[in-house]
């Protein structure tokens, strides 16, 4: 599969995937230590999807995310230190500590929000795509959702509306095989989520989410179609999560060596490294130099988050309304 990525693009894709991985692995460790409040859903293992999608997007493009949103944020350009502070509930966080892991949003980078409601994002993406259409800026909007949300009425309604209005929207179904603890093999009655595309009058494709290049190429086609004014597409990305539904999930619904085998044989970052070093003239030490920068960034982010102040008591009452 040939895709039009420069060396710089490939290094940037690697940086985004590796940043997500390190961010999530570190949140896993810090959560276990008890420093992080609330619910946290980790994206580790799924990095090729966020990066493969967002490497096709620019600053005018919008994404709506899910409860498993850290990876989408990083891939769309949300600042990592602000995210970490937000996850710690600190005043310096992206949302000043009032959103948390499940509600990180950064409208300046086109990130319309992680979402605590399964299926909450697709309707909003129809609106973002509609706004782009009215503005005529060539922008597209991407709804990330999981196999769980693929069964929500909001998702069905949104795909139909996007097709009826011919919106520049792309529906990215990240099928990691589990809606919480329930298998997609049971809950998604049509087999592949992409089979549903025909019912909504749009192209649908299923790609291997362990392969950055496959995701990138499928999205390139879908984004081009949207920018050309030809309407929405459904891209199903089949992938695996390295952790449970939430941190603290003992994952007894998974096979005993399932995650171990996935990490050993299907790690999207390992596959990316192997390919770019053998086929794209990228030296291993270029990647390890990026690794060092990321390790430092995550260390600094955690240290800064821990040291940052809590929100002030008066913050409780602010930003409910613009004017009231």
């Amino acid at each position, binding site marked *: 599969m040939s895709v039009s990525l420069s060396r710089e693009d490939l290094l940037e894709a690697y940086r985004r995937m590796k940043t997500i991985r390190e961010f999530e692995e570190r949140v896993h460790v810090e959560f276990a230590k008890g420093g992080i409040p609330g619910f946290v859903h980790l994206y580790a293992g799924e990095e090729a999807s966020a990066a493969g999608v967002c490497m096709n997007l620019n600053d005018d493009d919008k994404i709506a995310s899910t409860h498993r949103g850290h990876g989408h944020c990083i891939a769309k350009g949300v600042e990592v230190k602000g995210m970490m502070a937000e996850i710690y509930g600190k005043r310096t966080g992206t949302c000043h*500590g009032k959103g948390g892991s499940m509600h990180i949003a950064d409208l300046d980078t086109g990130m319309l929000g992680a979402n*605590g409601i399964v299926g909450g994002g697709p*309707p*909003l993406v129809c*609106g973002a795509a509609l706004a*782009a259409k009215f503005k005529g800026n060539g922008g597209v909007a991407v709804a990330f959702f999981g196999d769980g949300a693929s069964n929500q009425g*909001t998702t069905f309604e949104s795909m139909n509306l996007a097709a009826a209005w011919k919106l520049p929207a792309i529906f990215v179904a990240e099928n990691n095989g589990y809606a919480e603890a329930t298998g997609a093999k049971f809950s998604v009655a049509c087999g592949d989520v992409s089979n549903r595309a025909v019912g909504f009058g749009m192209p649908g494709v299923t790609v291997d989410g362990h392969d950055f290049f496959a995701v990138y190429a499928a999205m390139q086609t879908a984004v081009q179609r949207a920018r050309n004014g030809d309407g929405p597409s459904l891209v199903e990305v089949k992938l695996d999560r390295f952790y449970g539904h939430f941190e603290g999930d003992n994952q007894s619904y998974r096979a005993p060596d399932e995650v171990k085998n996935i990490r050993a044989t299907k790690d999207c970052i390992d596959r990316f490294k192997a390919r770019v070093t053998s086929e794209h003239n990228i030296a291993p030490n270029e990647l390890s130099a990026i690794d060092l920068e990321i390790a430092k960034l995550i260390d600094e982010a955690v240290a800064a988050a821990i040291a940052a102040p809590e929100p002030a008591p008066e913050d409780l009452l602010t930003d409910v309304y*613009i*004017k*009231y």
Partner: protein
Amino acid sequence: MARKISFQQAINEALDQEMARDPSVIIMGEDVVGGTGANGEMDAWGGVLGVTKGLYGKYGDRIMDTPISESAFVGAAIGAATCGMRPVCELMFIDFMGVCFDQIYNQAAKFRYMFGGKAKTPVVIRTMIGAGFRAAAQHSQCLYPLFTHIPGLKVVIPSSPYDAKGLLIQAIRDDDPVIFCEHKALYTMEGEVPEESYTIPFGEGNVLREGKDVTVVALARMVGFALKAADALAKDGISCEVIDPRTTSPFDEDTILESIENTGRLVIVDEASPRCGMAADISAMVAQKGFEFLEAPIQMVTPPHTPVPFAGSLEDLYIPTPAKIQAAVRKCLEYA
């Protein structure tokens, strides 16, 4: 200010003037044009009761029919609002909130707070409320207390053509999400409405009639009923002060408390169900903040705690009436 138009025309005029003024104002909803993808004429309906009729001819694709998919198009209006548009979306009947409430109360209402003050969601959701049309239990409710309960939403309930126009223009220009409730029995009500554009600020109650004996607070269609009751009571020498809060969020407590300071007596008329409704909410506020002014128990005139019945004989019993308001006022006055 001699020109009289209907409540429905006042809403149409507000939409028209705001669409002319601001290209980011767009309209979407079921049959708001009427005829998209059909074989006959476009703008066939202009909304199920014709409120948006004629706007398609002026503004074309800025007013859009939708599939019957409230979650998708209400959510789309909300999403477009976060991306720089000012959508006015029509939820045909407030009773249909059940199929799209998540987008309103978990998404639109919470964005600004959850996102640390960085989001702006200037969306208006217009919706019909109210009984009286023999439309039965799923097309007749006054569910505005449910929206009033949600921090982050503003809730507007006009009772006259003048208020409908000024409050709707304010709603469209407002940067927060607004639920705009239109009582369907008021659509044909005529009243004086200036031709030029104007706004009415939210959170400012309207004293429609001054009086010294009893304060009557009413919303939407009940405002007219309260004024009728006040007219009848005046013949017996009973003087009522009638207040329309006009918005339930934000809510003008001061105008009510100042009135009770003078009258010492309060009747609240609300077409919403009695439990956790506006009558109960206002009663609680006055009990807490105006207790020393009260000379009699607060009277609440509401429907019974039942769904809205279909049969005319039952629906007429269900809806508060001027006679019931009069009785409540007289009951207040039994306490010396």
